[in-house]
């Protein structure tokens, strides 16, 4: 499904050498991996490269066989709209939209009819257990609830790929595991591919595989059956 080969990325004015080189990764449909690594090694940068928000220096990224590194800005934006879902550490729920509107936002962007978008969004909210809050304003919700809304938003349009950068970074450990399980479950249900960056070993253990990013590439740390 997702094939990354020989990815190299450095920043101009960086340390002089690339941040990482030779990153390769192959993911099958329904597979969820966790990426760990020291702070500053470039985990977020890797996710941004996959999302087309950072240009790559070398290497190729293919999604369902299509090469992504050659896409221009707008084409990538349209691709993200259709095939990507995001979960952020800081939730990024729009305060001026209601909960259900926030979840329906990706569907709106895909020009789905309003009724259908709303029904899908409510179904997704039901899935994350927040249907009761559907018509509330986000400012009344707790961090854990906001992140569950973000998960609903990331998956409501059935994306091919879900990227989550420290999705539990702002949550207490207990809630973190619950939210992460929910995220993984939803990704697997949807038959999508999930890449989750985390610093928490406990959280990472919930994924199918744990990979460690270093300057020389991604190494498998622990694999599970």
């Amino acid at each position, binding site marked *: 499904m997702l094939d990354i080969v020989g990815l190299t990325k450095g920043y101009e004015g960086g340390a002089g050498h690339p941040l990482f080189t030779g990153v390769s990764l192959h993911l099958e449909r329904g597979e969820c991996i966790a990426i760990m690594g020291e702070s500053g090694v470039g985990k*977020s940068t890797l996710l*941004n490269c996959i*999302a087309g*928000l*950072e240009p790559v220096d070398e290497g190729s990224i293919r999604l369902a066989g299509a090469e992504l590194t050659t896409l221009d*800005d*707008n084409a990538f*934006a*349209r*691709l*993200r*709209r*259709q095939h*990507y879902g*995001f979960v*952020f*550490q*800081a*939730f*990024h*729920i*729009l*305060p*001026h*939209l209601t909960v259900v*509107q926030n979840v329906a*936002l*990706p569907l*709106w*962007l895909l*020009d789905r009819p*309003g009724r259908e978008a709303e029904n899908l969004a409510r179904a997704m909210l039901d899935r994350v257990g927040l249907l009761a809050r559907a018509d509330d*304003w*986000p*400012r009344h919700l707790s961090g854990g609830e906001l992140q569950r809304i973000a998960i609903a938003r990331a998956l409501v349009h059935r994306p091919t790929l879900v990227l989550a950068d420290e999705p539990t*970074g*702002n949550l207490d450990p207990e809630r973190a595991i619950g939210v992460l399980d929910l995220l993984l479950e939803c990704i697997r249900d949807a038959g999508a591919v999930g890449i989750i960056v985390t610093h928490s070993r406990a959280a990472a253990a919930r994924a199918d595989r744990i990979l460690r990013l270093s300057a020389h590439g991604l190494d498998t740390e622990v694999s599970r059956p």
Partner: protein
Amino acid sequence: MSAALRHVFLASLRRRRLATALSLFAIALGVALGLAVQLIHGAALDEFGRGMRLLAGEADLQVFGPRAGFDDAVYAEIAAQAEVADASPVLEIDARLPGRDISLRIFGIDMFRAAHVHPALMPQVDTAARETGPLAALAADALFLSPAARTALGIAPGEMLAVQSGTHALPLRIAGTVPAAGLGQELGVMDIAAAQLLFGRIGRISRIDLRLKSGIDRDAARRSLAALLPAGVEVLTPETAEAQTSALSQAYRVNLTMLAIIALLTGGFLVFSTQLLAVARRRQELAFLRALGLDRAALIRGLLAEGAVVGLTGGLLGIVLAYGLAGLAFNYVGGDLGAGYFRGLRPALRFDLRPSVAYVLLGVLAGVAGAWLPAREAARMNPARALRAGDEAEVFQSRPRAYLTPACLALATLLCFLPPLGGVPIFGYAAVAFLLAGAVLALPTLVQLSMGFLDGTRDVLWMLARARLAAAPGQAVVAAAGVVASVALAVAMAIMVSSFRHSVDGWLESILPADLYLSASPAATSGFLAPEMQEQVASLPGIAAIRPVRFDTLRLDTERFPVTLIARPVDGGAALPLVGATVTADSPDAAPSAWISEAMADLFAVKVGDVLQLPISGRRVAFHVAGIWRDYARQHGAVVIELADYRALTGDFNANDLAIWLADGAEPDTVAQAIRNALGDDTIKIASPGDIRAISLAIFDRTFLVTYLMEAVAILIGLFGVSTSFAGLATARRKEFGMLRHLGLTRGEIGRLLTVEGALTAAVGTAVGMVAGGAIALVLVEVINRQSFHWSMDIRLPLAGLVIFAGALVLLAALAARLSGHQAMRQSAVLAVREDW
């Protein structure tokens, strides 16, 4: 605190350079316009007052009569009074200069008496002149020019200057100067007997300046002298005379100052919007500082200091600009800014400390006032909540205060019914302020309501824009209040000026029914048409009929400036632009009729049907007020009487102007040429009604030039407001845009989102501004103009212009929103969604 002040608060101004620069610029503009108007008028008024004092000299009291003058027997009687130490008669002539467009004030004085009363008018015989010697100044053709008049006329001692008397050009010899008149006053001095002879005013004087014996009470002397004077001749103190004259231009000056204050308010408003946005954006930073132990008061002080710095810098810049502007205006427009109040003066620009400091302080005040609400907002926030990400929008949820709108409107209506204070329509201006406040306060609710209409939209960008504006109407207020204010003022001015211009045009048409107009001198200066001349014109081929007009001034009381007397054939009022009801005299032996102008009706509280005593020819004559007419030419009041009545009362058969009707088939140009051939070219002016209308409207437009300029500035500042607000908002909403970019919105689509928001905001703002502007126009026309200038006008909406203006403004605002959001769109989506930035 001082380090925190520097690094946290003032440094923030540097970070948002564009917004800071724009608010600073707006304040500078307000200060500059206000101070420039003040400086220009101050200098003109100073010079004007100096002129009046110079002419009054050492006089304790002054006796004034009509412009035509009064009998010089009065002088002999006054001079003989026991209280009077010195009396100096003056004949003041506004002498038309044939072949030139200007006139010259000539003072005929008694050289022997004047030395004690107004030494400044004493002439000095120039050695270059032909005749010198002790009596040279008394020569019948000797004229002395002040230095300013010499420069203005470009004429040297010994040369000849022609002045007009009747329709004759009479040469005078420049015998020397009036050195003490100073550089600002254009005037001439000659012997009074010579002047009487020259200008056909034998036995008449227009003024007596008196010095009282020491120890005499001035008020008592004034009362006892007043009893000796004939009707229409009054004795005043020099201060009263000066105050009456400067009061004439007061309403005009107040109007301009109000416009400048509005510019300053707009500047304060820009500070408000940028500060509110800055506070929204720095919410977490400020919350963090509070968490670190910065107390509320210190936070407020720091934020107010930001506003004060902007205000102070803007104020100082404004001062520099103001002096530049005033200098330019003196060079190109003159001391009255084109309104014609201070002719014959050469005021000089000086540094004036007091108003300069006052305006810098006003600038600081505008800055601090603008920073006040945002600072309070910031101090009120809960640091714990604010430290959490994602609630910038909270600032903009601003509690709608729509219930205040009806209160504002009611108050504004009430204020419209109050009379002016000291001739200034203070309450009218207050009504305008309340109307504006009401409109701005209604904005959040109106934005929310109008977003309801867009409910059905399917386009995701419209949906997002709508949701944003409906949920955070405070944002719309910040961005649109500037639009509302500037649109309202611009629309109000546009409606007022268009109504005014239209009314003036109609008025000109109705007062100019003839085919040609012949004028011996404008504004009743020294030219006139003697009866023979009138007959000569009437008998020229091609002329069917002539109607003479005679002007004079009448002093009705000691309180007010004299009114203009116009004697002309009136046809029972049919020839006048009458407003309101009229009455006709029932019996033939009743008092003769008079028609008074609106200004006279207001100022002297006279109504149709009243009996009015007019001092004509030294006698009080009862007139019956038959109607009120509209007069845009004389804001101090005018009264029209039948020419036949005037002639019977005065025996004066001269005329200033002739209205000429042509015989069928006669060519206006041919007839005009025939008149010129008969009367001479230089001493008369002939114009068609079309010419007069064109010239009058050109003067009208020039008078409103400053207004147009200020209006343009107001709109510019309004657009600045939109663009700074959106620039600030775009920065405050970086996270939102970053997330939307992750969700797959292209940069172009985010640009469109901002454009849509800008257009929606501006559309609501423009609509509200238009309605408010209409209401303000009504106040301007019915209250402010009426109370300032005492004239009415017919309201006329320049609809097409307004629609185009509204459309253009919405487009521009959308563009401004988009351009200023550009910065935020350039910014990396990756950085934007990071937790801490």
